[in-house]
């Protein structure tokens, strides 16, 4: 299967640690997944809310690039990118008018529209928790709050997720790493990231209960699979809430003993030290 990686802008800027940890995990499983060449904005910024066609066309161009390179599957680590690409692929496949519009705009004819998966889904489905478990060097004796947010799962008609209110993908992977996952009710709440800059007060009100619930549930850390969620949860929490927020790939890196973890974690806004002290104490005890 020909798989291409669509990092999106975040992973080349604010979420470099997500990008690096993802690539480290890929190579740990001997997966050679190159980026879609000459990729562009996915349309998740202002495009899709101001001009629907532009929103589709931007995403479609990335799919076209991947298709031209023979890709069967495009993996997107960012939930917003995933949502845009997935939606574009969904509509192009189902609606002739949208396909025509896209093909006209891009001056390109799709031979077939590649499948789109988010990184979490990809690792869960293609690598599998069992294979991950076999590679664990240092079991993560941590209590984690897995946080999906909204766009990884919804709308279910587009994402094809069977259980949008009660997903298990991240828990499966974290448990394979040796962690225990807390039960909490805010896993699929929206963090408000798309309003983070325009209505930050509103977003603070949205983030606070999410982070509070994770702390109340006894979690050592929150785990995400989206650069917007990660940044938002760290930036918009109240200053008294000091729970670190990880990318799931970072924790895979830790448990699998991959190189570069320190460098990734140094970029976090909330110190991850506490967690690692606990982990170390657990190992020694």
């Amino acid at each position: 299967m020909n798989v291409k990686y669509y990092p999106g802008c975040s992973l080349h800027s604010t979420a470099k640690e997500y990008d690096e940890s993802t690539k480290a995990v890929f190579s740990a499983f001997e997966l050679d997944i190159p980026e879609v060449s000459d990729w562009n904005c996915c349309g998740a910024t202002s495009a899709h809310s101001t001009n629907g066609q532009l929103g589709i066309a931007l995403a479609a161009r990335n799919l076209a690039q991947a298709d031209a390179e023979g890709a069967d599957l495009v993996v997107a680590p960012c939930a917003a990118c995933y949502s845009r690409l997935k939606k574009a692929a969904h509509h192009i496949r189902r609606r002739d008018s949208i396909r025509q519009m896209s093909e006209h705009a891009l001056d390109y004819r799709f031979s077939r529209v590649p499948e789109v998966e988010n990184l979490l889904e990809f690792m869960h489905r293609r690598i599998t928790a069992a294979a991950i478990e076999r590679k664990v060097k240092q079991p993560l004796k941590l209590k984690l709050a897995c946080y999906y947010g909204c766009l990884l799962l919804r709308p279910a008609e587009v994402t094809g997720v069977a259980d949008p209110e009660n997903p298990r993908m991240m828990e499966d992977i974290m448990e394979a790493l040796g962690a225990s996952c807390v039960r909490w009710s805010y896993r699929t709440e929206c963090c408000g990231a798309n309003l983070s800059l325009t209505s930050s007060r509103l977003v603070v009100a949205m983030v606070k209960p999410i982070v509070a619930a994770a702390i109340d549930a006894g979690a050592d850390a929150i785990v995400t699979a989206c650069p917007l969620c990660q940044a938002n949860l760290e930036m918009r929490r109240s200053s008294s809430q000091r729970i670190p927020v990880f990318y799931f790939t970072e924790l895979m890196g830790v448990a699998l003993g991959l190189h570069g973890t320190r460098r990734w974690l140094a970029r976090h806004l909330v110190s991850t030290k506490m967690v690692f002290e606990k982990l170390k104490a657990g190992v020694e005890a």
Partner: protein
Amino acid sequence: MMDSARKSGAVLVLGGGISGMQSALDLAEAGLRVYLADSAPAIGGTMARLDKTFPTNDCAMCIMSPKLVDTGRHLNVEIIPGATLLSVEGEPGAFSVRLSKKARYVDLKKCTSCGDCARACPIDRSSEFDGALGTRKAIYKMYPQATPNAYAVEKRGIPPCRAACPAGVNAQAYVALLAQGKYREALDVIYRDLPFPSVCGRVCQHPCEAACHRGRLDAPVSIMALKRTIADTVWLEGGPQLVAPTPRPEKVAVVGAGPAGLSCAYHLARKGISVTVFEKLPVPGGMMVVGIPSYRLPRDVVQKEIDVIRSLGVDIRTGQALGKDFSIKSLFEKGFSAVYVAVGAHRGRRLGVPGEDLPGVIDGVEFLRKVSLGQTVTLGARVAVVGGGNTAMDAARTAVRLGASEVTVVYRRTEQEITALPEEIEQAKEEGVRFLMLTSPQAFLGTGKLGASGRLARMECLRNELGEPDASGRRRPVPVKGSEFYLDVDTVILAVGQATDTKGLDELRLSGGTIAADPLTLETSIPGVFAGGDAVSGPGLLIQAVAAGKRAAESIVRFLDGEDLREGRTLRVPEEEIAPYEALSATKKKRAKVMCRPAGDRRQDFKEVEFALDDATAREEASRCLACGACCECLECEKVCGPGAIDHRMTDEVVELTVGSVILSPGFSLFDAAKKGEYGFGQVPNVISSIQFERMLSASGPYQGHVVRPSDHKEPKRIAFIQCVGSRDCAHASDYCSAVCCMHATKEAVIAKEHLPGVETTIFYMDVRAFGKDFERYYERAKEEYGVRYVRAMVSSVKEVNPSGNLRLRYHTESGFRTEEFDLVVLSVGFLPAADAQQVASSAGILLDEHGFPVTDPLLPVASSRPGVFVSGAFSGPKDIPETVTEASAAAACASELLSGVRHTLTRVKRYPSEREVRGQEPRVGVFVCHCGRNIGSVVNVPEVVAHACAIPGVVHADEFLYACAQDSIEKIKERIKEYGLNRVVVASCTPRTHEALFRDTLREAGLNMFLFELASIREHSSWVHRDYPVEATAKAKTLVSMAVAKARLLEPLYTVFSEIEHTALVVGGGITGMTAALSLARQGFSVHLVEKEAELGGNYRHVKIALSGENPGAYLEELIGAVMSCPDIRVYTSTEVADSVGYKGNYKTTLRSVHETLEVRHGAVVIATGATEMTPKEYGYGESDRVITQRELEEMLAKGFVPQSVAMIQCVGSRDDDHPYCSRICCTNAVKNALYIKSKRPDAKVYVFYRDMRTYGFREKYYRQAREAGVLFIRYDPDEKPRVSPRDDGVVLTAQDPAIGREVRLSVEYLVLSTGVAAGANEHLARVFKLPLNQDGFFSEAHMKLRPVDFAADGIYLAGLAHSPKLAPESVAQAKAAAIRAVTLLSKDRIESEATIAAVRERICSACGVCVSACPYEARCIDEERNVAAVREVLCQGCGACVAACPNGASVQRGFDKSQIMAMLDEALSDGITEVIRE
């Protein structure tokens, strides 16, 4: 219509809930035979699961269990449990029906319901009856009062582990028994199929684990390790003890003492056959001792298990080679009747490359054998093992232990394709074995010239890459050209496969190097000679060899018995018999890890590497089993079942019946609340469904009636109810209203407050639909009296709050978003079609609608799309209990109409011997004390009670039974009655509730009057309640027996009396209800007097002009009147009223009066169908302006073709107010109907509906939605803030507050339409004439709101239609039919029989004061004016005893409960044992 001769007088009722029971009882009482089939093991349906019922707060089980008992004991109702419908063929009157009846595995006739089996059962299953809040066993009784009162076994198929095991070892059973710590029982289960538990607990390839369904959830159960723990534990406790078989004369020879041979010998020996085993090697055990290294399988382990086989009488002779020391022929000559050849595959294969013969290249099998037998093997320092199977691993690890410094496994494919078990590879790596993958040896080179001679020095290898999959499904290695390289080695061990040494096998036909044998039966070319194991199949797994031995033994036994070798045998379990994976919500749990000795230690020696799991770990691991098969067939229940009722060999069967009609009432299913993920059901423990809450409230439920939270078992302080979960919800495909949830939640909120004083209950709702009789009052009481809080809001999310476990609800009200915390959330889940509705419908040949409910006639809701097939209850749509019961009777009426000509043709009557005269005789009491299995006997000392009974005066015989109610005990009781001339019988056992009728019947069968019986309840009243106090319990049991005997001595025979019946009915009221009832009665064969006070028939329905769902009201009414008028059995009296009536059930004389004449009619039953009237509005300017009209007037106007351009409707005019505190039920539907009609005629017309709660219950919700979609505007108003109305000449102006937008609206419309309520008619006169009760609203009061909705308390008079309460036309029609069959249950009898235990009068001391008359609720007491004493109308008396208690001077007495009898019991109670115990 077919002639009566071909019709069948039987009816099939499918579904035994309250609906099915009611239909069955009505039909059986009306002279038809009934088959009552239910898919569950017991009848009772959903009502059995409920705690209380609204609006009376009656206990559901208390009011239902008499029906259960009546149904269960009715001579003409045959209950068929576990049945599903297969087909219905034929035509109305003569259907042939096929049912599939699931095997119960328990004989209903033998089971005494003692419950010993369930206590022995190791399998816990989630209890569907308790809504998964509790568990039950795989053998179970659904609920304590279950009918039939017997256990049933749940089997889901062969568990996948057992199906995957070649030897069919019952893994689920031994794992389950292990989980309970029953090691010995577990080992016995293994020994049924396998003589090597210890061996296979260590070295099996465990295909069971690969098949284990648990693997889909996390990881398979560690079945092999558990088997080892079982075997090791039992060995520590003295080893297995196998039952010695009965010897048989035949001798069988087995050639080869490996696993295949010994397994065969074992199974033959267990059948008593004497077996001699011949083995070539000096030791028995085959590959178990010469193949598998002892660090994996210690020799003493094998030895012990071989010794067990020997202990069964198997003679093993070693050093005996076939073809050398003996031949097959010689064996037959020596008198062996059959021979089994299992010589294995002990010869190693070769690679076929140059240099294989060099010294230093050795064979793996031979290598292992030599090491095992203690022979010398020379190894170099550098050893290469070629191969990737378990032999390769064994050879490599053995080489390590022999001191080789460098051991390399060379394999041509990758680790993915390797056949050795992953744990083997892992352990080899830990011990330092290196793996060289994708490598094939090309040649072995020696130290000599050109490498072709001398000692082995190096190996030439070639690299491979993987190509296409080969026959084994693994990818084929393809050599890479030019990739040759060399490996320096001193020794090469070839482990590339094994073959059978065919020397000495020349008597048998061979094929491809193995013995040719039939794969299924293992027969060879010689009759009587069988062969199996590796010698037949080529090298295989140990467990396959063992399986072959077992299969050979089966063939040999069949051969010896002269039976067919093939019949009923298959090589593997067919896929459809394997239990499917159940997506259970089990929590993930790590698989137990088997511990090993440290690698450094184990490299040094051949001591066992792996440790057994300890007891705690093993039991924890065993508890991970998902119990896929449900029943595991461990047979523990069979062991403990005293009456021998359990039979695991039962099979499903097909039952064929001939019936005249079919009634379908299989019930409904509930919406799965987990589908609304935002409420957290299934994830968050303190969010439960309404049925779970019901079970929580129930005293017999999993929480014994304690309302506590599942998470911490703490009492909640705030409970929230969320309505419409899966109802009125287009997103989840159940867009209709479930009709009962509003009241159900209200009741739960009220009852919760009774359980937990001070608890706050809040109901979140869209509309409160309290539309049934007395529902609105109940709702108001819930609010006002109980303080239940109602919040009109839909909850958008439920979040769990940590660590309290509370729930945070977010909802939107008219004043914005709110969040609020609760301790417990109850989801009012909606009704869905029955899970098997589709299958039932296609089998019955009826159509379903878009929701999956049956298509029914718009005016006769019990008529399905197929004539002769009727539907009722929640199967045909969501409804509450009274409507269900009404429909059940209506369906019975329809069937009874169809079969009126064949009534009493198939009913049975039981004949009894004539009764012995006992009056005036000395009491001769027989006492029978029951052990009830262990229920009584394990607490109460039964022999002591028997001895005590013997000494009581009047007792001439006492005895004990293990089960007094078992059939053989019943026979014994009858014999003893004759033998000892007993004239009174006392049974000391369980409870009269379930067993009194049985024992009374026994007396009748023995020729005694059945009332000469007394039951002492020493189970419920002693052993169960004093379980921990056996001495005191025994003393109390003795006292209870003394009391029973004291009463029994004074018992007198009781008799019933009979009275004649006038087989005619009087129907009062000529609307559609009265006419329908009259027609139904006539069609059922009874003549009718139909009285209507108006000049013409038709009643209120004459005003219905517009249809709601496809009916044609005018045509329907015309047709109905025509049918009534032309019916020869109906005499119609118009402009006539009932003036007076005397008499009672069966015999009435009623005076009818019209302007012209007064006449008297005689009849046996009465149906009251007098209807009701439209309320005349007193508000909104009605009567002052012709622009203000009622719905009825609007309908007339529309029917005339005038459609206004704009109308506003106001709901609840004259309903739900202080003067009329009830809901008129029909007005919301009527408003929607007329609004839709206006919109259909004039789409641009403006229609506004001002409402309080839209009560378009059930499927009427669809029309409400259609109206909104059509643009009708619905505006809510509060009763405190009604719309203000100003009529003008050209219309009406309304102003009102619209809560949805929070602003005042002002509308101007052409007409204002008032949705006026339904008012009771002038019923007082009729109530007086027939002495019938009216409720506070002036409607007639039925006997019981839930279960007797069309009966009056006084038998013989029935009720239907609007006279009962407001309702829509189809509901009135159903009620009319129901009333008709209720009357037929009376009229169809030849004569009326009274009860026996009824009131009587001691006339000598009666002063005729009349207190008894007013105390009697059944009109059974009266004053005999001539003799001036009170009298009893015996056929009416129900034996309630109210008059006896009321009588001031003791003149009223209750037969069977005489004062002298009661005093005698009290004397006993206060004189002996028990008081002393209390004093101590």
